[in-house]
């Protein structure tokens, strides 16, 4: 027995743990445990502390991210399976800040909605933890586990309004589709492992680079992309999104449409740029088709929506198409793919969260998310109407609001490729940015130009937490549009040098 142990000891290589690099995740883990435990001991009337706790935890986790950024060194662990490079830091910061906004959005919604509070924040933090891990994951197993950690709590949160059949439906559909996608993704990953003989992305990249173009590799890549296509709600893997968005608690909808989607993109970027960099023959056309389909179908269906949240879901699908577009020219444009998608993610997070925050604020009065319920908003709540207009037109990409810069960098990356297909995609993007305006402006029209339904003009009372969320998102939406900060974040977000083939 001892001998066996000794022998085993010989084979066991003690892993080198860089605690600084893991600090954000450790802080998160600690906080989520604290939240869970605190929930047990807090009396019912003191539960309001929980969101503050969760929020502070997220901000606390941001501190090590900043110190790591200041430190600047790329940190690699487990033979490259877990990496803290600039890319990881940028997306971690994004997840944490977006998560903080989600907490702000949730505060009143959850407290007033008679939902389980402690568990809600616990699950939310777990999911965000999964995302931060995803930012560093450069290994199939880690990616898979991180994906599940960010997904499983999200399934539950989507169905959090459990007495509402729509809430159940939202959760169930999200869950089932998620598991289906996981199945596809896992099958693809298993083939990748089979081809490369390793789960590390850098090894896979090297293996694929040398291999001939084989059906098995194509199959593996397609399945992996499809699995994350679900996560980023790319057409035709988008079907869950509108139903889930509509039925889920609105803060969670915002969370899914921003953070969860961003996590999907983070994984895709890692897979595609590190793993499939040499297999652009498959990746590019696939991404081209996904991008074009997502933009177009997302947009035209959004035109038909009467519910703002559903409309934002479809708009999110279309926005995902824009974000996928630079991947359709991956490898032809240097760092532009990465820069543009990260920039887009950052800006998209600000404006989309903002839009959802306004929807929540308005729904507090009208109790509805129908487009018509926004009628006359400019009359009785001009600030909200102006803010909503800012977010919507930012989503539509109208300068000087940040959205234009996001779209611009996407265009820039695509056009940099200078191929016929790239230009065709650019034209598709251009046409779609016009279609998108139609439905965004439709809401603006409702707010500014139509009377309030039933003539009800009582002002909307916006709680402090929502105000804070609005302030954060609005400031970012305005500032990113006229400064270079968002693009600088995108530019900074590079993978560690030695991991890129």
């Amino acid at each position: 027995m001892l001998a066996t142990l000794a022998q085993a000891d010989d084979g066991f290589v003690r892993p080198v743990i860089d605690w600084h690099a893991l600090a954000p995740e450790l802080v998160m883990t600690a906080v989520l445990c604290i939240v869970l435990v605190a929930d047990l001991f807090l009396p019912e009337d003191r539960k309001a502390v929980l969101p503050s706790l969760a929020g502070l935890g997220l901000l606390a986790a941001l501190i090590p991210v900043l110190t790591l950024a200041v430190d600047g060194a790329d940190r690699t662990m487990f033979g490259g399976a877990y990496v803290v490079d600039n890319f990881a830091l940028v997306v971690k910061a994004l997840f944490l800040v977006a998560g903080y906004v989600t907490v702000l959005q949730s505060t009143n919604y959850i407290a007033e909605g008679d939902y389980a509070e402690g568990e809600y924040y616990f699950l939310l933090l777990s999911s965000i933890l999964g995302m931060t891990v995803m930012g560093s994951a450069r290994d199939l197993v880690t990616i898979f586990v991180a994906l599940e950690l960010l997904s499983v709590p999200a399934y539950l949160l989507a169905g959090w309004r459990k007495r509402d059949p729509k809430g159940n439906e939202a959760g169930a559909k999200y869950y089932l589709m998620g598991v289906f996608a996981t199945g596809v993704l896992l099958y693809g990953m298993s083939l990748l492992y089979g081809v490369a003989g390793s789960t590390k992305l850098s090894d896979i990249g090297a293996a694929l680079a040398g291999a001939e173009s084989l059906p098995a590799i194509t199959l593996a890549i397609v399945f992996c992309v499809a699995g994350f296509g679900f996560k980023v709600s790319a057409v035709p893997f988008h079907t869950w999104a509108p139903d889930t968005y509509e039925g889920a608690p609105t803060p969670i909808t915002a969370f899914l449409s921003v953070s969860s989607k961003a996590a999907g993109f983070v994984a895709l970027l890692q897979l595609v740029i590190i793993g499939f960099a040499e297999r652009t023959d498959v990746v590019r056309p696939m991404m081209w088709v996904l991008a074009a389909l997502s933009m177009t179908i997302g947009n035209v269906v959004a035109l038909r929506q009467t519910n703002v949240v559903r409309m934002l879901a479809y708009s999110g699908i279309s926005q995902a198409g824009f974000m996928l577009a630079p991947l359709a020219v991956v490898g032809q444009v240097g760092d532009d793919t990465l820069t543009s998608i990260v920039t887009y993610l950052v800006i998209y997070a600000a404006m989309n969260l903002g839009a959802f925050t306004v929807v929540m604020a308005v729904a507090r009065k009208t109790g509805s998310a129908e487009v018509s319920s926004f009628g006359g908003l400019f009359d009785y709540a001009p600030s909200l109407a102006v803010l909503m207009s800012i977010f919507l037109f930012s989503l539509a990409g109208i300068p000087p609001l940040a959205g234009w810069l996001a779209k611009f960098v996407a265009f820039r990356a695509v056009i940099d490729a200078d191929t016929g297909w790239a230009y065709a995609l650019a034209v598709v993007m251009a046409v779609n940015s016009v279609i998108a305006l139609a439905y965004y402006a439709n809401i603006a029209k409702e707010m500014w130009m139509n009377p309030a339904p039933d003539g009800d003009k009582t002002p909307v009372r916006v709680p402090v937490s929502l105000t804070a969320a609005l302030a954060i998102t609005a400031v970012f939406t305005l500032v990113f549009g006229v400064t270079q900060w968002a693009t600088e974040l995108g530019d900074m977000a590079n993978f560690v040098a030695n991991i890129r083939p």
Partner: protein
Amino acid sequence: MNNEFLTDWGLTLMVFLPAAGALVMLLIPKADEQAHKWVSMVAVFASAGVGVAVLADFDYGRTADLQFVVDKPWIDVINARYFVGIDGLSVPLVALTLLITPLCIIYSWNHFPEPRNPKAFLILLLVLQTGLLGTFVAQDLILFFVFFEVVLLPMYFLIGVWGAEQRQYAAIKFFLFTLFGSALMIISFLALYFVGGETFVIPELARNISEPAAAGIEAVPLATQVLIFGGMFMGFGIKVPIFPFHTWLPDAHTQAPTVGSVILAAIMLKLGTYGFIRVALPILPEAAVEWAPYIGALAVIGIIYGALACLAQTDMKRLIAFSSVSHMGFIMLGIATLTDFGLNAAVMGMVAHGLITGMLFFLAGSVKDRYHTLEIRRLGGILVKAPRMGWILGFTAMASLGLPGLAGFWGEFPAILSAYDPGAGLSTVTFRVYMVIAALGTVFAAGYLLWLYQRTSFGVPTEEFEDDDIPDVQVPEWIAWVPMLVLILAIGIYPNLVFRVTDDQLTSVAQMLTAAVGG
């Protein structure tokens, strides 16, 4: 150019003072309407004051050079720069913008269109002003693009909130059309960036593409240039608007509140034509030569088509709107000839059309205020009821139909003139045909404008308004209109007011075009 502060900060202040005013107004409560009016007034006049100082300090001896240049990095990652400056091409348009918006605010002083809300209305006007001024001073494509787009939102809301019955449809149509154009335009800008040596600065791009060897880039094939030009054509052409992309214009004009129509007609349409001369022609001269015959064809179609459509109108404002299509056709024809005559004519046309059509929309607005309708057959006898207004309308209609001695003529005639002898590389026969068609367009212009004038102003008032008390021109209207009327006359009598400023700059553009084809 003595004052260093003015040199460094003049343009920036001029552009952003209105926006600063808008920020201040955001903080003032909605109820305090007087404060809003005065703050907006101070903001536009401060901007205009700085602008006038800049224009006074402008060295008219070398209008072909960019002056008051500020060149600072802006969004480094995409190589976008804060690069502003003015030359002979910008000056008249900047001056026009500085003039029109204050007049609009004065005009609105006492009668904001329903649903009033002066705060929002004026804030939007101020933002609009910043966008317009910015477009005319920007020398970096991205900066240009941003300003070009900034004007969309305020105008959308001005039309959509303060407009007439069909305002929502008109507003969104305007918005979608323009955005479609700009989306294609931005593709072209980006393509230019990559083929033109990774810069967005307009003069640099022009230099790089004309002398690829010196810039160390590959020569840009003609086919690529033509495609890139196509994108810009869509962007600018829709804004102009060129037939067949004009359909947003009548709706937008008809539905917009008076001030909105005025700014739309007087300044916003010029963004498109300005873009052609500022961006498209100098950067891609060879492609311009390829495109010119088609632009010319669309321009003359627009001239005739707009005029024919005018003849069918029953609504005064819509008629004026279609007349814009026709008049912008002359401007585009001038541009399409690629000659110094044509370009000068185009810029003159822009200024003249800005003043005249702006004035016509002011008048239409005032008529609407008084009669609560713009249906031509219900009007009549304005000269009886409000003789001064009637005379002003007559004067403006005359100016609009291109009467010599008034500003409109100097936009039209040289444009027709230039088509006789188009620039190098263009088919003379084709353009002479255009010339004759365009000249015929002047007949139509006389037709529809005088017809309009006859039916609205001549004769006796219809029974409906026989006994109504129709007030004549009032003080805010006088203040707003007199400068425009005087300018229409002054430019008409002494067109060199504009030509002297623009000529050097545009001649150099034309030479560049000739050189591109010749070389």
